């Protein structure tokens, strides 16, 4: 398929969705920067607070409303919580027995901060986080796109230590503020011209020119060996110039033109369905236009009131956080399961959308080049173990889906910590063996093309993935 026909089929597809999307930069790339096999590798992580429903086997609700599937690696059965993903069965993988070791005895409410970092942030006192998975990948590919990453959440900003409202942390462990207003996100992606950025860049260029001039005059006073040392400095300045030139390219490239008429950019979390779908759609458009290749999206902060608490209204239920506390009330497990089911449904809709879209810059569909994960840092009630994680896509990255992968030992039925309702649960002894989630992160990073064999202090990949 040549660029033209691909582009045609894409346009045809886009018409079908009711979106007019003009992608002028794509010609630029297909002409030079990328070969056909250079389809961008993308990463998305969606985080939801409060874990999932995990009733005891003895509970009548177990049959339908326990989150984890039943059965083996391939022949698993989805319960009512995840059955909305049945059509995507062969595009997803579900994991059990993974968690970050340092958080296993810390209250679940404190732990959204460390879901993508694995840092030992503890439950109180001094706080220090580390770089998150997505940002490690950003360090490698961030300057290939106009935006290094798209950091989203329902609540926006950074939140508080141990009460994060963002999933992304930089190299120094500082939170990267999340955006939560669809209109702002849209404008950043597709409207803002970047005149300030252009001005800053141009100033930087003059400064670099002057520094190179400075080095030249210094160079004349140095011995030939010291000139070599100074050459490292000059190389660093030149490399910086190259980076600026890349940034300049984005300023000079016209913004993707997206017709926003079908997007509800003023959606708020209380209109849960529309809000959810708009946010996912923005991630989709950002990926499609190659405005970024990395996104994180946090659906609410752990604990407490806030806009995210209204998301459960999408399925006619009151405050989302309250659902986890009310599991022993009539229909409690079912209500929590219904809300989790709804979260899975929206994730599935997004996954389906990627699957239905041909890859603009390579073969296959967009899902094949995207690794999207969905999970939480607690399983049941405040318990920071056995994280409920779903991943989708990534075929071209080396992921094979359609599987339920159990890791660790002693918790084959996901009963450890099931049905707990008191603090004795989350702070209790770790009795079953789980593997560090960082092992999965190393696998992901390697398949995204980052050369590393450890993450967050844990070395090694996860077998079978």
């Amino acid at each position, binding site marked *: 398929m040549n660029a033209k026909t691909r582009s045609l089929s894409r346009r045809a597809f886009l018409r079908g969705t009711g979106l007019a999307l003009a992608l002028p930069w794509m010609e630029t790339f297909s002409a030079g920067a990328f070969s056909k096999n250079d389809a961008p590798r993308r990463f998305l992580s969606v985080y939801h607070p409060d874990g999932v429903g995990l009733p005891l086997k003895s509970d009548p609700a177990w049959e339908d409303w326990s989150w984890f599937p039943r059965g083996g690696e391939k022949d698993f059965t989805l319960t009512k919580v995840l059955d909305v993903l049945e059509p995507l069965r062969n595009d997803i993988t579900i994991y059990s027995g993974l968690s970050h070791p340092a958080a296993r005895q810390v*209250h*679940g*409410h*404190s732990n959204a901060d460390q879901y993508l970092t694995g840092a030992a942030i503890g*439950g*109180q*006192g*001094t*706080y220090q986080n580390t770089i998150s998975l997505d940002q490690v990948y950003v360090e490698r590919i961030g300057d290939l796109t106009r935006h290094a990453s798209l950091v989203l959440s329902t609540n926006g*900003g*950074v*939140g*508080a*230590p*141990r*009460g994060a409202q963002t999933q992304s942390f930089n190299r*120094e462990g500082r939170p990267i503020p999340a955006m939560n207003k669809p209109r702002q996100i849209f404008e950043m992606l597709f409207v803002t011209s970047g005149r300030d950025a252009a*001005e800053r860049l141009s*100033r*930087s260029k*003059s*400064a670099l020119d*002057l*520094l190179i*001039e*400075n*080095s030249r*005059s*210094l160079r004349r*006073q*140095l*011995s030939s*060996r*010291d000139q070599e*040392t*100074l050459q*490292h*400095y000059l*190389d*660093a*300045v030149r*490399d*910086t110039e190259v*980076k600026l030139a890349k940034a300049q390219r984005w300023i000079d490239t016209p913004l993707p033109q997206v017709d926003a008429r079908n997007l509800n950019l003023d959606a708020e979390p209380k209109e849960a369905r529309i809000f959810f779908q708009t946010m996912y759609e923005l991630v989709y458009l950002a990926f499609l236009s190659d405005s970024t290749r990395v996104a994180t999206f946090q659906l609410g*902060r*752990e*604990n*407490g*009131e*806030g806009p995210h608490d209204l998301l459960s209204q999408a399925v006619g239920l009151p405050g989302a956080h309250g659902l986890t506390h009310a599991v022993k009330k009539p229909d409690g497990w079912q209500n929590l399961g219904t809300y989790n089911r709804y979260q899975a449904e929206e994730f599935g809709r997004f996954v389906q959308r990627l699957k239905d879209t041909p890859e603009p810059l390579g073969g296959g569909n967009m899902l094949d080049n995207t690794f999207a994960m969905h999970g939480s840092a607690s399983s049941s009630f405040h318990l920071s173990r056995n994280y409920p994680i779903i991943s989708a896509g990534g075929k071209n990255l080396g992921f094979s889906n359609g599987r339920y992968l159990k890791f660790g030992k002693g918790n084959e039925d996901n009963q450890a910590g099931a049905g707990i309702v008191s603090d004795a649960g989350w702070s209790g002894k770790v009795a079953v063996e789980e593997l560090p989630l960082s092992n999965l992160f190393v696998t992901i990073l390697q398949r995204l093309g980052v050369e590393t064999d450890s993450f967050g202090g844990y070395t090694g990949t996860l077998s079978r993935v």
Partner: protein
Amino acid sequence: MTRPPKCNSRSSALRERNSGCVICRDGAQGNKVRLRSTAGQNLAVKVLRLAMVLLIGNLSQITASAGQEVPISLGAAKEQGRHKSRFLKEAKLTAQAGDAIAAANVEDFERIVGPVLTKSCLGCHGPKKAEGRLRVDQLNADVPSGPDIERWREVYNVLTKAEMPPDDSKEAKLSEEERGKIVLWLGEELHKASVIRRSSKAESSFRRLTKDEYNYALQDLLGVEVEFANKLPPETASEDGFKNRSDLLQMSATQFQAYREIGLNALNRAVVRGAQPQTVTYRILMKEQMKVAASAKGAKTFDKDHANYKKLRNEPHLLDRETGLAVHNPSLSTPPQQNISIEPPLPLSSVVWALPQAGELKLNLDRFLPDEGIMRVRIRAGRSSMNSNEYASLRLVFSAHTSNNASFSQTISSRDIPVTASAEAPEFIQFDIPLNDIQRNPFRKLATQFPRRDEFLHIKNISNAHGGEERLSVLINDVEICAPFYEQWPPRSHQNIFFESEHKGDERLYGREVLGSFLRRAWRRPVSAEEVDPYMVLFERYRPGFPNFEEAMAEVLATALASPEFLYLTPRRSLEGGNAGQSRIDELAFASRLAVFLWASLPDEELMQLAEVGKLREPAILTAQVSRMLEDPRSKRFSRLFVDQWLGLERINSVAHLNDGALREAMLAEPVALFEEVLKSGGSVMDFIDCNYAMLNERLAAHYQIPNIYGPDFRKVSITRQTNRGGLLTCAAMLTINSDGKDSHPVKRGVWLLQRILHDPPPPPPPNVPQVDLTDPEILKMTLKERIENHRNQPACASCHSRIDPWGVAFENYDALGVFRTSIKDRPVDATSELFSHQRLAGIDGLKRYLLMERQDQFAEAMVHKLTAYALGRPLSLGDRVDLEKLTAEMRRQNDRLSDLIQRIVSSDIFNSKE
């Protein structure tokens, strides 16, 4: 003397002797006084230890040569060992430093040295065996220019350390006279080799500033005390542990971009714009708080007659010292006021907040604290009693609790400030906290009330107050919090850059003035008008994009801070005539090198001015300036950086078995305090091997079980042998970093001693060495020392470990945290070992005695090497040998005075050299 039995059999033999106790009784006789003074349960073990010391002493050549029955004291060893120094005898070598290059003396080799080598060494290092792949019959006799220089250096090292030939060898004997002849000849030849290489420019000291130096340089240049360099990647340490070595300091685009970003942020901290921002002030006067608290609903008041008085008074409370009325832990709050001065101070009153040990005063600041600037916290407080055994200090903690399980708290004061005034005459204690740098409540500006917006300041009493009727409390009269606080407006940091000038109205003229002054300070040299020009061009290019002069100029100045002229230490050639001038750096470059060495920063105005008029290197002036620099508080950076890196102290932060933060701090501080003491008191570097004092604070003294040391400050304390301390070797930090997480680790300790103290690092382990098999039940039964011996007996391991382990075993009386012990798992500690040269060491005293008697020169050379390597910031090579030898000889002649060594280093040829 008969050869002692091999390691394995020896340790079991020793155990027999210990349990047999025959020797104990014999040995103990001469030392009744010491035994009597030793009390309690340790007595038996001490008898054993003493017996071991005596036993080994009898065998060792030290006591044999000293002709005494008991080992000589370490003080005497220090004195006697000093007389053995070759540096105090060989006047000739050192005088040659400036000599012309001499030819190799092959004649003496053929006449004297060759025959001895053939006789004594060929058996093992010849055609038959070639041990260590050395064949003495194949060494090229032209040492200075021949290809075998490295081999010859090895030969020199093993001969001067008496490691070769092994004294159990029947055929390989070397008389002291023969040894002396080889060493003399070889020493001269190596000296010639060094002279040849000296002019060949092997290494360069042209380098960028390290992360620490960059940080301090920015702080001193801008007058803003902020930690700037956290964004920069860590430096790589050399094998000596130093992070300033020219060939290891990297530069990358990421690093360069970080410099640009940090520079601009730093300037934005230093300069201000517009009018002084409104200040927010909280004034908490306890007398006023009492009025509210005592009459509040449910107030828990009490007085001396209260049934629970004894308990209640040891919890925080408001107290009227006149009436005795107290309110138990009321919550305090005061609405902030805008733009009021904190002068004059609030009146003194009889009402105080009584803060007992570990208690706190928690203030709710609500959401009114500004985002930026300095928060000045001023607390007027006194002590409830003046007992000199007790101390109390104040610490600030900042916290927020935004929702359940989403809380944080952080210590924001950089150090605890002691309360020294009496309650009758309380004094101000002042903290300045940069609000930009502390963790804030991100929700403080929310319009809604949840998540919670409040921020809290906690004033804590960190104290050692103990029991007793009148336990020490801190009594606080008032607290004032003011932010953003400015001593003056615009602040001094701003005026340093944007000073008063008659040209202030003319941006071009004034811009040139500002740039000229700033560039001179940042680049440590006067700048010409031509050098200012391009920066003025940049300014004019930037100016339209900014609302005012200062902001545009700050961007330009930030560029100057990313220039190699700021980031690098440039060895600019001196313009003086003659050969000396050609190879020397100019005075300004010298001033920079000096300031980086002793302050880890830029030269100050005084050094700059002296350098500009070419007077800094005049001997009397230089000596006075170095003394001034060492007395300046900035020299603390030198002590800390040098000692941390020399001894590898950073590792203490990743030691798993040390969880007590206060102990960790104290451990880290001890070696630095000892270094500073030796430096400032004109002491000898031999004090690092052993001395009769220790630098201690309360926490560390408690760890060492030394009584009656109170308070957090380090001070010099006289000690006796019984404390088992003195010098660096027994500092808890060394022993802790060289442990394995559970127990002592003799191999690590041995390597550490060789590498850091004796500058004789063992080679790295070869590939494919067999691991100690911990699944073998026989091995599991062994003590650590036995395991090490077992490992050492394997041929692949023996050659290295026999040179490492014995050193480390001598430390076995110290556990993983450096606490002295006499038994391990109910078995007496066996800290005896035998060096490769068959010298026997009995515990730490034996080790120290041996070092002082036999290895003073080696340690002196090591010390000179380490300090010079740090001072130059480049690798040292054979070409530096001449200068190092000269420095060592000079230091030894000056009674090994550390301060003298520093003076000599800065006036040495290598420190002044362009390379």
